[in-house]
């Protein structure tokens, strides 16, 4: 495999996440119960998404500085993988919410209107939609240089929307989602117990590296295709 140490690290960390994530000690909390273990999966999806979007915007800036199309390809594929992680985070959150936030006396779909109005969810949905628009914008422009330049600029704009919509906006409004009170969404020092932190941090790194791996595979494949088209 191509430069494989961090891929092996990703595999090891994810293996550790699954084993320690299911078997490790967790605080016993009412309502949450064992679903607190979703922290290692659901929350990590969002962390991986944010890191991958950051990599994407960095590459967009690099493109604008050098006009090397390679960076445009990097930016696009990191954004796509980040969107996939975002969708996974969203759908896992939906499952989790329907068993913890929903009124247990009513069927889950009855609580849907309350849950769907939660500002954190709407913020995340806005962020994802902005990035969907990024892909649509890209693929609607034929000229390669124009496509790269406009989408790089749009990428920066989308990144500037991402953090207000998932970090700031939900904090202003009341929300069911944890991390609404004063501290940033996850005050890892106080909100997460020590026994969970030793799984949570490796889990974030593991999932992020997996995302990077997928993105690099796509990038390498695209670069090959471009090379074939030129020659």
């Amino acid at each position, binding site marked *: *495999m*191509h430069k494989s140490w961090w*891929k092996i690290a990703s*595999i090891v960390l*994810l*293996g550790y996440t*699954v*084993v320690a994530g*299911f*078997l490790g000690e967790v605080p016993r909390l009412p309502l949450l119960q064992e679903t607190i273990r979703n922290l290692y999966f659901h929350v990590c999806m969002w962390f991986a998404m944010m890191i991958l979007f950051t990599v994407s915007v960095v590459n967009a800036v690099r493109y604008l500085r050098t006009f090397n199309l390679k960076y445009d390809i990097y930016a696009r594929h990191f954004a796509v993988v980040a969107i996939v992680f975002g969708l996974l985070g969203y759908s896992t959150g939906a499952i989790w919410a329907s068993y913890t936030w929903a009124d247990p006396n009513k069927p889950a779909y009855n609580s849907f209107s309350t849950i769907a109005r939660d500002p954190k969810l709407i913020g995340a949905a806005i962020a994802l939609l902005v990035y969907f628009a990024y892909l649509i914008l890209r693929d609607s422009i034929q000229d390669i240089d124009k496509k790269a330049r406009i989408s790089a600029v749009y990428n920066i704009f989308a990144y500037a929307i991402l953090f207000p919509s998932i970090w700031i906006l939900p904090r202003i409004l009341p929300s069911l989602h944890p991390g609404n009170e004063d501290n940033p969404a996850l005050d890892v020092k106080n909100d997460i117990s020590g026994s969970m932190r030793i799984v949570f941090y490796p889990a974030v790194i593991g999932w992020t590296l*997996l995302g990077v*791996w*997928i993105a690099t*595979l796509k990038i*390498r*494949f695209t670069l*090959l295709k471009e*090379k*074939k088209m030129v020659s």
Partner: protein
Amino acid sequence: MNSAKKITTLLATFFLSLITFAQDKKTEMADMMKENGRIYVVVAVVLTILIGLILYMVRLDKKISRLEKEN
């Protein structure tokens, strides 16, 4: 077959049935897969999925590496 052997066989079957009888109360087996509300089963399932996905990733990686070499 002499009578001594017959008796031992009879006793052996008797004790065997006793053992199975004892098991009826609580079927205690040496399998950790059934402990802790069978959480280990979930771990095994998720690990299997993870290993499958990673093997797929590794295969893709190797394929692309081969393509890169050819070009």
